[in-house]
């Protein structure tokens, strides 16, 4: 079961933020943010967006604040799924 970041009701229709059960593992641990057809990957090591497109500025600050507020839990959720590529593996922190 993916970890769905709990979002306020008024954001839920448009937005999702989750850690999935199968991910690209050679890349940085991340949470995927969705707004309908658009998706962004936000790195759990770098605490920054992993891709320049779609434009990260389209993501509501409120969503990013929620991610920051739940950062530890998101890291824990990633690490329990993907112990071979843990968030805390510092040296490869931004290997992409």
């Amino acid at each position, binding site marked *: 079961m993916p970890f769905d970041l709990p979002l306020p009701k008024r954001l839920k229709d448009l937005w999702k933020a989750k850690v999935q059960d*199968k991910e*690209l593992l050679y890349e940085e641990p991340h949470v995927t943010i969705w707004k309908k057809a658009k998706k962004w990957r936000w790195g759990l090591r*770098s605490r920054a967006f992993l891709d320049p497109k779609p434009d990260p500025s389209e993501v509501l600050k409120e969503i990013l604040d929620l991610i920051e507020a739940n950062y530890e839990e998101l890291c824990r959720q990633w690490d329990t*799924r*993907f112990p071979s590529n843990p968030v805390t593996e510092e040296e490869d922190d931004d290997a992409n």
Partner: protein
Amino acid sequence: MPTELLSESGRQSADRPQPLAPHWVEKDAEARRAARSEDTNAVWIVRNSKIANWIVRGISWPSRRAGFLILLDTPRPELLAVLMRRFERVAYADQIGHFLPRAEMREVFKAPDTKDRFVGGIIDDETKTVALWRGDLSSFVVPFSAFEPTANGIEPDWARFSVTDYGHTLKLGNYEAASDAVLYEYDEDFRRRRNAKRRAEEKTLGASIRRLRKQKRLTRDDIPGVDPKTLARIERNEVARPHIRTLSLIAKRLGVQPSKLGTF
């Protein structure tokens, strides 16, 4: 288990001048239109075999092959053979739930990365394979072993398959897989494109700064006057034109001329 139903006549999303245009066929008049259309970008989406029969009856033979067809249930073999002769590609499943909902499917066909998303699929428990339809309606087959249980014990449920998140996610009960993770493992072309993109990004100013910083054994917290988050964004090329003052501070701490920052 579906056999390979799709002619490989080279329709690639990257080369495609126009996105595929979905049309839901629900009435006889629409079925007649689907039967006669020569629109090479049209995708005719049909709820059941009864409506597909209407289409076949409206075809004037010999017919030129054009357009695409999605049948949201399992066709009779006889019907399938005819549809494959009339349409460039034919996708089908055994349940409507195995295709994206209408609104999401429409978005996938419009998306520039349509080929890297899935619109539907079908599970074959006998051969332990998942046949998936990509956004350009080409087929893509992966074994059950592509969906390994997670370290915390979440397992795929083959009886509860669906595509979701506008084709970016494959859902198997409580288990969710990112489409790009599956494509990366099983599609060499996807892998090549993804890695080419990564290599291109590695030639950028941001990547050069990152390599130099690593070489100097510094963390992002070690650059006075530059917020670590800003530096992360610069290193990931999210800042189109970093401020010259910021670059000067980075260059100073890294011990190089600002003009040389992009050469590492």
